[in-house]
């Protein structure tokens, strides 16, 4: 389905902001949302009242904090009533699906300035409850009902992938090592410690073969980006970033219903469409922020996005090509693993990071040199939803 035929406007990102991700004991959901929004708005030099609509990604304000109607809460707390706002939910892809809705709003020509936000407050519930709530992202009747957890689902993917492609436990650990290295250079990351392959292999088992250090943490956080038509972008910023394309695809909710357990078809479809619409190919990508809720997810993402062929991602890690400075930097801010995963905010945070890389604004030691084209990738559940966004420097925008 090629939407570009109907596109009215090119879309540009004109302002970004994000809170650090982490355990924010003293901040509530509404406070996190405000912090990220203020940051984006200040950067773009706009008045909040200019924002025509809000698209807010949030997986489960209700289960984590008791608060539904999150979109209304945000416009109220920001002092921006009566602007319309919509909360978007697609499990871990909530933020990126919200971003896509904002993109569609501008591309359609119906809007001139929208805000996309993502927020999640996860640390107000204890232990087993967070695991149970996140299980809502899978098929609750035919997967979670039987006691499968989210790590358990990805563990079965890892189990099957290792069986089919010979991936080793050590190779899988390298994904976490690399992401923690990037996270150590990122002051906004949830986890900033550097780890070794041995650290990963000694960490406690969560769901065989996945260990604690294969799993992203539970984080609080928020992020916000402002979108405008490309031909109006320079009103707001000298460094507009073009959205080359933003594609989304769906697949079976359950893992057992998938065509191939070691492939996320939703990622493949979204990537294929995103490259087609932006008239680019995987070789053009300078860096990628991919959905690494678990180390195995990054292996699959690298392949399903077309950045390498099926079964060959491990080689990239053996050769350290996915570090900043390598052939294909992946998860330059530490990814979900180290930068953190405030579920509804993550998709938007990935955009924020990609924008900063393309602007050349990343911290010392973690700037991808000469970054022109970036890709973000976000997945809901075990692969039922995937969003692929291609961003490029907006030098060509007049």
């Amino acid at each position, binding site marked *: 389905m090629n939407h570009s035929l109907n596109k009215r406007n090119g879309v540009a990102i004109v302002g970004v902001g994000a809170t650090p991700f982490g355990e924010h004991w003293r901040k509530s959901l509404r406070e996190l949302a405000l912090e990220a929004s203020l940051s984006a708005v200040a950067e773009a030099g706009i008045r909040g009242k200019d924002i025509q609509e809000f698209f807010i990604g949030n997986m489960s304000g209700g289960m984590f904090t008791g608060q539904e109607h999150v979109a209304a809460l945000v416009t109220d707390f920001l002092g921006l009533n009566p602007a319309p706002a919509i909360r978007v939910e697609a499990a871990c892809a909530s933020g990126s699906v919200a971003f896509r809705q904002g993109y569609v709003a501008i591309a359609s020509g119906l809007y001139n300035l929208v805000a996309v936000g993502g927020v999640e407050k996860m640390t107000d519930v204890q232990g*087993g*409850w967070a*695991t*149970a709530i996140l*299980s809502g992202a899978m098929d609750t*009747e*035919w*997967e*979670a*009902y*039987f*006691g*499968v*957890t989210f*790590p*358990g689902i990805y*563990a*079965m*993917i890892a*189990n*099957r992938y290792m*069986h089919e492609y010979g991936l080793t436990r050590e190779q899988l650990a390298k994904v976490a090592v690399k992401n923690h290295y990037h996270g150590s250079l990122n002051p906004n990351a949830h986890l900033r410690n550097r780890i070794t392959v041995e650290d990963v292999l000694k960490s*406690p*088992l*969560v*769901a*065989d*073969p*996945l260990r604690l250090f294969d799993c992203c943490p539970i984080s609080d956080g928020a992020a916000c980006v402002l979108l405008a038509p490309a031909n109006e972008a320079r009103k707001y910023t000298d460094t507009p970033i073009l959205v080359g394309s933003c594609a989304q695809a769906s697949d079976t909710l*359950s*893992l*057992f*219903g998938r065509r191939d*357990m070691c492939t996320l078809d939703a990622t493949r479809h979204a990537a294929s469409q995103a490259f087609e619409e932006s008239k680019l190919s995987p070789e053009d990508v300078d860096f990628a922020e991919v959905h690494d809720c678990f180390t195995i997810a990054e292996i699959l993402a690298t392949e399903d996005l077309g950045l390498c062929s099926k079964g060959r991602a491990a080689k990239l890690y053996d050769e350290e090509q996915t570090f900043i400075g390598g052939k294909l930097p992946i998860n330059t801010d530490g990814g979900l693993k180290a930068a953190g995963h405030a579920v509804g905010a993550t998709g938007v945070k990935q955009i924020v990071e990609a924008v900063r890389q393309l602007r050349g604004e990343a911290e010392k030691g973690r700037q991808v040199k000469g970054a022109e084209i970036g890709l973000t990738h976000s997945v809901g559940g075990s692969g039922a939803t995937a969003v692929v966004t291609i961003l490029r420097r907006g030098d060509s925008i007049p």
Partner: protein
Amino acid sequence: MMQSASYHWRRYKELYNLKGTRCERCGGVFFPVRDICPNCRREGKVVQIDFSGRGTVYAHTVIRAPPRGFEYLSPYAVAIVQLDEGPKVTSQIVDCRPEDVHIGMRVEACFRKLRDESADGVIVYGFKFRPVQHDL
């Protein structure tokens, strides 16, 4: 979870016995029961079928950080089982040590307690799988 009797009861027939759907138009066999064929949609003709309960482990793991309500069972094996009839199912594997589950293991459905979350609530029963050890 806060859902009470009706949420669980409505599923008893499909939890107590493995049931699925066959589409007479495209020949597809599906689990769980589907009200319309995912391939043919309104043009399909779906009938409910019973599975034999026999299958092979396709992928597996051991849950060691259980969700609320399953702590007492930890650690427990979970697997995706490919039924002999084709579709795959997610379920616990019992009657063996969790570490002994392996890809290719032959298993059969059995009847167990699925959920027993509180001393004053409804007990939910349904299928799990165990290793096949006899040729019956």
